[in-house]
């Protein structure tokens, strides 16, 4: 092989390879080989140089000849103490290439730019010396040599070479922070000194620059705090994690950040752990560094810390999002609960990053280089996100959607990018869009392709019953009197009823549900869309349908007077109303009457016939004799139905069904109604009648499909509540000397009935709502996924339960319909039905969507609540209300204001640590003092005296606005008086409902101009839907309430 060197070069270059381990874009390790050329003549940039190695350009500085020594900092010193080296007094510094590289790669770009500027500044007379390109000053990194050792070896070798190169004319000082380096190299060469920075400054500069040590000390101090605060650790490799999970060394679970203390506290709920056995299954993750870049919702792997490092969670009510760092982190012992299992996150199994709604901070200047800006997410639990955008000025008062892209080890905040803008902050549409995105609900209009699949029903082309369907279905049109009872103005009727006496004296009860599956075949686009939506979403002022309007409001709606397909469940009940026979199947029906609740109730209460006729359009315009006859038949059917339902319910209540009604839900239901300007109605018996029939139908359908598909039926269960959740309820009960038993649903139901204060109806409601909060969430599941003993429904006290009666607005019902039809048709072909595994995934998805839609609903109600109070003067009569204390905390209490159904904290101690005292004239005084909390009382001791508050006491609070720029705005409760509010709570439900109704009405009217017409229409339907959810059963309805309150408290406390 012949070899030839590059011409025109006086000296030979030596080539060698440098091996680097890099990471590629996918994060895989990559071995990279780079060649390096070395030469003998690398300019030393020293005025003392004898060998004339200087370059001819004058751009770079020159080391002066008149200093006492040259300074060679090592990598760490250059990185961390660059500020010291930047002092104008320090000249003659030689930055080695090794050092400059380390500053560039281990430090950051800004630091490197500072270093380059320092070298360019000729007054500093400092240079970069390319030691790695110099043949003799270079040392190769040995195999297995660690980076820091190699760096110091290179630094010393280069310093040594420099000294020799200048023929010993000037001493060299190398500064390093590593003691062992000093020990190793300190006395090798006479005039090459190795010192620590402190020693060096003390020796050379203390006389001239006394302030220099202070600077060094402050840098050192800040370095220490920085490393403690946000230095994240790299994640463990996946094989280690897998092995660790198997041996139980690590635990896996979802990260749940505490909303009110987002920067400090997060919890990991252990996954797949039998929760009844393991009560304290939550692991506390304390602080950002042990959270290690995980974001709320991620599936993380946790390593438990040794018991000595366990910490307690804070017991102080904090305002959402307030940072507690300035408090020094040390809470008083009274403000922290006893220690709980604490861990740190070592790896992330799955990121749950989604789109986040965010806002640019209000006042911040954004002159950062590269256009990097911090975005504050709407959700308190999400850390700030760094994005780069040039549109900051234009979008300053907008809500924007951002996504997280990555979170680097060395970065305090995650990096993300801007997706789109939602609109200006404070506008109704923007806020509603934000709610939808935050709950991950995507609702677009139905596509043309989907609409094409659906049957048409227009003036020109009216929809007709198909002949072949007629043959296939049982025809109930002539034989049964079918009618529906729904709220007034309801358009989509998905359940109808029939009742009659059979020849043998038994009663026949029929529940006929709209046959949605006839129109929505598995696998069609409409089915796909319905599956992904899973449920119709109701917001306070609008709704997003699961199925297109043609189905939900027309073809699937069992309107009176037209032929409709139905799926029926028909029981034969004996004289004591025990079912002796049950029939399931497809039918064709024609509803005779579309009644509404009030008229049905009135009929059973004996309303005169002419009044009835006035309210039932189907009875009008008929001959006199017909009217009498028909009214009589209808009246007896309604009465019969109520009679049957009464018995069914009684049987279920004996079995231990819970009645956990609370004011809230009723309020939520009535509020939509207000837009139509109806007076809120009381709770009628006929509501329960309908609900009971639906529960009955659901229960029997569940029985049927569970029997037919023991491994793949979609059911709904409601697990036992966790014992510790009842703690607050029990504490409250004992404050009033009530006995509450939580052993079983029956015991609970009975003992709740005894918690009644004749003078104070709110107490019973509050107790029930506390019990509701303790409940677990009901959920759909596949029978193949759980053991038999977990199928039961706790709240309804039924062994099997499912959802069957509302296929128009719940996807689960559609699946159940299909399963029921497959079960009764005796066709063995079950190919269209989901398998256990698919069903498991499906039920998870549906549960998730349900929760999301409930959260969205709650958020939108809070939004409207806020908008209502926004228009009020705080001194307004309606803003001062009575409230009941239901929980005590270290710095305040949680109260329920029954008038509006608002729950929230009332602070007795403000952020400055002052406590409140109510003067006799009603003035509030804030002063220094302390708060003592016992089981049932909390007493405030201030310089004015001591005041105490008991659990379940009434106090007066004022509702004020909690305005927020980046987050959702809400209402806040402030203490006005320790006494009950004078107007009292005697108004009861009615007043509450009216009040709430007024809220939404006012807000909607103010906010909606152009689409007023449409929205009122929507709201009407919306109300019906809600009512029907309620109509499922009173307890089931509580279930729904239960999610809400449960979520609410979980997020707030």
């Amino acid at each position, binding site marked *: 092989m012949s070899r030839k060197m*590059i011409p025109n070069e006086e000296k030979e270059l030596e080539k060698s390879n440098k091996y680097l381990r890099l990471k590629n874009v996918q994060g895989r390790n990559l071995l990279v080989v780079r*060649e390096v050329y070395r030469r003998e003549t690398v300019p030393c940039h020293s005025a003392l140089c004898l060998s004339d190695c200087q370059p001819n350009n004058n751009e770079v500085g020159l080391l002066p000849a008149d200093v006492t020594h040259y300074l060679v900092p090592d990598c760490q010193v250059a990185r961390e103490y660059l500020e010291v080296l930047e002092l104008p007094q320090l000249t003659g510094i030689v930055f080695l290439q090794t050092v400059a590289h380390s500053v560039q790669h281990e430090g950051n770009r800004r630091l490197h730019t500072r270093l380059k500027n320092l070298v360019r500044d000729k007054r500093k007379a400092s240079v970069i010396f390319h030691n790695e390109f110099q043949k003799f000053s270079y040392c190769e990194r040995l195999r297995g040599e660690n980076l820091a050792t190699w760096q110091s070896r290179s630094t010393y070798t280069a310093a040594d070479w420099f000294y020799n190169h200048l023929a010993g004319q000037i001493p060299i000082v190398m500064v390093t922070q590593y003691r062992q380096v000093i020990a190793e190299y300190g006395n090798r060469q006479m005039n090459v000194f190795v010192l620590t920075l402190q020693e060096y400054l003390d020796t050379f500069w203390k006389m001239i620059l006394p302030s220099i040590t202070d600077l060094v000390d402050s840098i050192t101090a800040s370095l220490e705090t920085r490393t403690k605060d946000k230095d994240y650790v790299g994640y463990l490799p996946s094989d280690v994690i897998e092995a660790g999970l198997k041996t139980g060394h690590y635990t896996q679970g979802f990260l749940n950040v505490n909303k009110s203390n987002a920067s400090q506290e997060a919890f990991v709920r252990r996954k797949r752990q039998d929760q009844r056995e393991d009560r304290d299954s939550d692991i506390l993750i304390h602080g950002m560094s042990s959270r290690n870049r995980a974001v709320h919702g991620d599936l993380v792997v946790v390593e438990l810390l040794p018991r000595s490092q366990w910490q307690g969670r804070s017991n102080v009510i904090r305002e959402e999002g307030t940072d507690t760092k300035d408090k020094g982190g040390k809470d008083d012992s009274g403000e922290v609960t006893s220690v709980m299992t604490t861990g740190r996150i070592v790896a992330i199994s799955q990121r749950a990053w989604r789109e986040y709604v965010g806002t640019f901070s209000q006042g911040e200047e954004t002159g950062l280089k590269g256009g990097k800006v911090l975005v504050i997410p709407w959700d308190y639990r999400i850390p700030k996100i760094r994005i780069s955008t040039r549109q900051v000025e234009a979008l300053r008062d907008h809500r924007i959607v951002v996504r997280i892209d990555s979170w680097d080890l060395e970065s305090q905040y995650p990096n993300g990018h801007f997706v789109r803008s939602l609109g200006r902050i404070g506008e109704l549409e923007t806020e509603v869009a934000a709610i939808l995105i935050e709950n991950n609900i995507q609702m677009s209009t139905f596509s043309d392709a989907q609409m094409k699949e659906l049957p048409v029903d227009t003036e020109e082309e009216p929809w007709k019953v198909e002949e072949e369907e007629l043959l296939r279905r049982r025809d109930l049109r002539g034989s049964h009197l079918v009618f529906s009872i729904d709220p007034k103005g309801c358009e989509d009727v998905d359940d109808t009823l029939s009742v009659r006496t059979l020849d043998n004296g038994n009663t026949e009860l029929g529940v006929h549900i709209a046959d949605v599956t006839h129109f929505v075949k598995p696998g069609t686009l409409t089915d796909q869309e319905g599956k992904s939506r899973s449920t119709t979403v109701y917001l306070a002022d609008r709704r997003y349908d699961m199925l297109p309007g043609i189905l939900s409001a027309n073809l699937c709606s069992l309107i009176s007077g037209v032929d409709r397909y139905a799926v029926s469940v028909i029981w034969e009940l004996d004289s004591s109303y025990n079912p002796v026979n049950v029939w399931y199947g497809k039918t064709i029906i024609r509803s005779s009457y579309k009644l509404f609740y009030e008229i049905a109730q009135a009929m059973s209460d004996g309303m005169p016939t002419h009044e009835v006729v006035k309210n039932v359009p189907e009875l009008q315009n008929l001959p006199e004799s017909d009217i009498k006859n028909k009214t009589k038949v209808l009246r007896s059917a309604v009465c019969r139905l109520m009679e049957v339902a009464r018995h069914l319910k009684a049987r279920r209540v004996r079995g231990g069904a819970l009645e956990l009604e609370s004011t809230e839900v009723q309020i939520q239901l009535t509020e939509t109604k207000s837009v139509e300007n109806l007076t809120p109605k009381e709770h009628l018996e006929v509501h329960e009648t309908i609900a009971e029939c639906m529960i009955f139908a659901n229960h029997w359908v569940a029985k049927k499909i569970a029997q037919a598909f023991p491994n793949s039926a979609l059911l709904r269960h409601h697990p036992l509540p966790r014992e510790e959740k009842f703690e607050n309820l029990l504490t409250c009960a004992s404050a009033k000397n009530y006995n509450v038993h939580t052993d079983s649903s029956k015991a609970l139901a009975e003992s709740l009935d005894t918690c009644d204060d004749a003078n104070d109806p709110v107490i019973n409601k509050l107790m029930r709502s506390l019990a509701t909060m303790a409940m677990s969430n009901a959920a759909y599941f596949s029978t193949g996924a759980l053991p038999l003993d977990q199928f039961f429904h706790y709240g309804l006290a039924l062994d099997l339960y499912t959802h069957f009666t509302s296929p128009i607005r719940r996807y689960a019902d559609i699946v159940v319909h299909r399963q029921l039809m497959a079960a009764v048709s005796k066709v063995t072909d079950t190919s269209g039905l989901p398998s256990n595994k698919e069903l498991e995934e499906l039920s998870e998805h549906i549960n998730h969507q349900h929760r999301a839609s409930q959260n969205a609903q709650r958020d939108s109600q809070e939004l409207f609540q806020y908008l209502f109070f926004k228009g009020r003067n705080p001194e307004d009569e309606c803003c001062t209300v009575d409230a009941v204390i239901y929980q005590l905390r270290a710095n305040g209490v949680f109260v329920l204001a029954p008038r509006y159904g608002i729950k929230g904290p009332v602070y007795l101690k403000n952020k400055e640590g002052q406590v409140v005292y109510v003067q006799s004239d009603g003035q509030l005084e804030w002063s220094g003092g302390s708060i003592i909390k016992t089981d049932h009382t909390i007493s405030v001791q201030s310089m004015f005296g001591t005041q105490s508050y008991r659990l379940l006491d009434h106090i007066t609070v004022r509702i004020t606005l909690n305005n927020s720029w980046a987050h959702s705005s809400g209402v806040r409760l402030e203490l006005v008086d320790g006494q009950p509010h004078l107007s009292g709570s005697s108004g009861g439900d009615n007043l509450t409902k009216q009040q709430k109704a007024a809220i939404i009405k006012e807000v909607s009217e103010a906010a909606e101009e152009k689409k007023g017409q449409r929205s009122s229409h929507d709201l009407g339907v919306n109300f019906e839907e809600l009512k029907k959810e309620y109509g499922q059963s009173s307890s089931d309805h509580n279930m729904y309430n239960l999610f809400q309150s449960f979520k609410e408290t979980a997020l707030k406390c």
Partner: protein
Amino acid sequence: MAGLELLSDQGFRIDGRRPHELRKIQCRLGVFNQADGSAYIEQGNTKVLAAVYGPHEIRGSRSKVLHDKVLVNCQYSMATFSTGERKRRPRGDRKSQEMTMHLQQTFDAAIQTSLYPRSQIDIFVEVLQSDGGNYCASVNASTLALIDAGIALRDYVCACSSSFVNDTPLTDINYLEESSGSPEIIAATLPKSEQIVFLEMNGRLHEDNLSRVTDMAVKGCKDIHDILDQVVRDHVSEVSTVHGWEN
């Protein structure tokens, strides 16, 4: 991560070269016995093998015959192990097809094609290791292989790339410099007559600087020519010594 500093204030490139310095070139002729001509070249860490067959009869379809000149057939490929990440590189991918075309055009211009009518010359190029300047190394290797095969050329064809960083033209850029996003000019010249047979530019470069950067590339070609020429002379004298043709 801070960006790489392609050219330091002190005038060093990432790999320690100065702007006008080439990478180290090592090469050898006649590495295979079965081919009519072959050569191996290393330019820094870019390593290329070239083999030449011909001139011979047209293989395959007769319709390809050119009656007044030789058909130059090139095939360029990269070994799967040639880059940091092992990657399957099917022979027909767009990148190598383009490279094949470029090589063909280059050598059409350099071979005295009219001397071999109705025949074919095959040039096979395999990149064993890639570290920037694949085209240049391929051209240089092919030139040597053609010389080894004794095919009549107008002149050596030498190729060299150049770039432009911080107002300074850099010659013979490596992979890092290539992939940094700075402009790139690739030139293949006949160095003695200073004729350019192939010129390609990637990236954005201001017109005012074009001639400086092109000059740098052409200068690089000349330097490479000096090296290649020396290698060929050494090779010939070595071979003639072996065969006893010295006198």
